[in-house]
């Protein structure tokens, strides 16, 4: 049996999980929960990471196509980013005051993103989407928010589905839902609630779980922007997942529209904990009236890391490279599917791709395939879009395609 055909086991992961489940609710909670993959066929705990690879506590090494669910964009332990962070740590991190680095980072974002006149910082993407909602309400003196079915904006009650613990119908009292890419429906909802809608919030394209990624229809964003401007609705772009993977200028620029507020997180600092909201000057007064903060929100190390990450993304042509590597992976998977008689659908931009088997509506084949790939050394999530980093090289993609070929043979045998 060749090295690439060796199947991993997860004994230590499972044993640690048993212990964890006795003292931590759910064992592992949130989006890291193994319940969202295929429990028993995936690693649960990471031990070390470098470049585009990480090793779990069983000693299994993976080429990583989730990148920590997005934050890793330049590679784990990127020396340039880590040096900037460590240099800052040697000076100051979490003190009584923000540092000069906060102003530098705000300046950097304002210069980088065409619609940004100011910047505000937090820790998680969900901090920023909730902050943006508050800013929109403060600016418009309106209550209602329109959002798109299936779009994820974090875990605040306003954007967490009913059915999860503690969420009550009143949390959604002012939330109106529309379908992606449906301008007519959006217009109808706006008409029905004229003068009451504070904001429309959406991701730049439809990157949902358990489904194909759907790009905006031609003219979609431009039509949405026109209606928002006419009706005094604040247009919020949740660029938490795709930001700085499609364009250094943000996904608004990439798709040719001008959001009023944009939320960033994930790729902004290569894994250091920071998020940002940028906005147009018309909203700055309202933004200053929103009281929103946290113990670590002015920490200086992540801000230094963000500055270094943005610079390194530019210096190394990372956006283009992620696109190339993602394209190589997707084309390779499609070719493998063709070779084994398994029709493969790829979707999303190459830097945040997703693949599934066209006939496999219920994801049974997908769950088997991703588990088999993962057990061979490439981490594929069965239900969530994947992430490419600038640390992925052609040889990594080729190695992954070897894992994928072996996994496709298994799928072919078992279906």
């Amino acid at each position, binding site marked *: 049996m060749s090295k690439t055909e060796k199947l991993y086991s997860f004994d230590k992961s499972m044993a640690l999980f*048993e212990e964890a489940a006795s003292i931590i*609710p*759910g064992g592992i909670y949130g989006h890291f929960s*193994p319940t969202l993959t295929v429990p*028993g066929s995936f690693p649960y705990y990471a031990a070390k990471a470098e470049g585009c690879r990480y090793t779990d506590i069983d000693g299994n090494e993976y080429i990583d196509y989730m990148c920590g669910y997005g934050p890793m964009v330049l590679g784990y332990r990127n020396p340039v980013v880590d040096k900037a962070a460590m240099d800052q740590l040697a000076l100051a991190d979490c003190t009584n005051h923000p540092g000069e680095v906060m102003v530098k980072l705000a300046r950097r974002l304002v210069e980088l993103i065409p619609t940004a006149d100011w910047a505000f910082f937090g820790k998680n993407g969900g901090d920023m989407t909730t902050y943006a909602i508050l800013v929109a309400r403060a600016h418009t003196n309106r209550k209602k928010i329109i959002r798109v079915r299936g779009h994820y904006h974090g875990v605040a009650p306003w954007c967490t*589905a009913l059915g*999860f613990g503690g969420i009550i119908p009143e949390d959604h009292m002012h939330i109106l839902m529309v379908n992606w890419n449906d301008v007519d429906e959006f217009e109808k909802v706006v008409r029905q609630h004229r003068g009451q809608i504070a904001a429309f919030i959406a991701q730049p394209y439809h990157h949902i779980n358990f489904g194909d990624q759907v790009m905006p229809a031609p003219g979609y964003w431009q039509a949405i922007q026109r209606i928002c401007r006419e009706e005094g609705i604040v247009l919020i772009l949740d660029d938490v997942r795709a930001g700085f993977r499609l364009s250094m200028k943000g996904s608004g620029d990439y798709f040719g529209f001008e959001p009023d507020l944009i939320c960033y997180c994930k790729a902004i600092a290569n894994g250091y904990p920071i998020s940002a909201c940028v906005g147009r000057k018309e909203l700055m007064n309202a933004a200053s009236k929103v009281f929103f903060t946290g113990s670590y929100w002015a920490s200086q190390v992540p801000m230094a890391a963000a500055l270094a990450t943005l610079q390194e993304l530019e210096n190394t042509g990372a956006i283009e490279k992620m696109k190339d590597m993602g394209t190589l992976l997707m084309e390779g998977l499609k070719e493998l599917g063709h070779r084994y008689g398994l029709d493969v659908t790829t979707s999303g931009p190459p830097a945040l791709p997703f693949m599934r088997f066209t006939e496999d509506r219920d994801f049974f084949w997908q*769950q088997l395939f991703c588990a088999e790939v993962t057990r061979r050394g490439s981490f594929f999530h069965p239900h969530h879009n994947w992430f490419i980093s600038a640390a992925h090289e052609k040889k990594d993609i080729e190695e992954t395609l070897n894992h994928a070929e072996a996994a496709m043979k298994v799928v072919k045998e078992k279906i």
Partner: protein
Amino acid sequence: MNRDQSMVLARLHLGAILPLLEDVAEYDPVVQEAISGWNFALQFRLAGGDPSTTLVFKDGRVTVQRDGSKGFTPALTFKDAEFLNEVFQGRTQKSPRPNLAGIFKARQLMQLDKVLGRLEHYLKPQPETLADPETFAFCVRLTLYAVAFGIKEVGEHDPEVRPIVLELPDGTVEMRIVNGPAAHLVVKGGRFEAQRGPAEKPNAILEIADLQTAWDTFQGNIDTFGAVGSGRIRLRGLIPLVEGINPLMDRLAYYLSD
């Protein structure tokens, strides 16, 4: 419990619990003896007729009809949902009012408490009942069916969970216990069909490793996320369908917690 919730609980009693008499009559000698020689239908209904459930006794067996029955059928009418719930929960000595046809079956109806009491015997068993492996397996199976039937009633009638149900994808979810029983739910347009046994072609599967894990899950004595992570509960296929049903199970537990 407000009026809407009382009505949901009444629907659970008639739609999810009473139908289990089919299974109890097949298994339990006490019920078999009590109903031997019974050859008639008996309708349980709320005043006004909705909801109603008819038990058809014939040759020592029970079958259930959910759409009521026609003709001169013995019937027990409950004046309101609260009263129905009190009767099913054993919180009142009063009895529902039989119709004229029911009066002709007065002798059998006197035995009815004993028959219905066997439902509670298996659904809320004492430790000594569970000590017998065969009876334990039966209790698990009965509870699995109660969960499946109960999800339908809660999902279709509880206003609190209707927004969740309306977001559910269409499809069939199979709940099964390894080397044990199965039940399945067909979800379509926010409506449910609950059936005993495995599905022909499930879109999602919730598989529980063994009877004990199933029992602990149904009794709310287990961290289900932890159980999924450890592999004692396996989810496969269209997971959003199972995820969407999970809060309905929680809601069902809320109603039946009394």
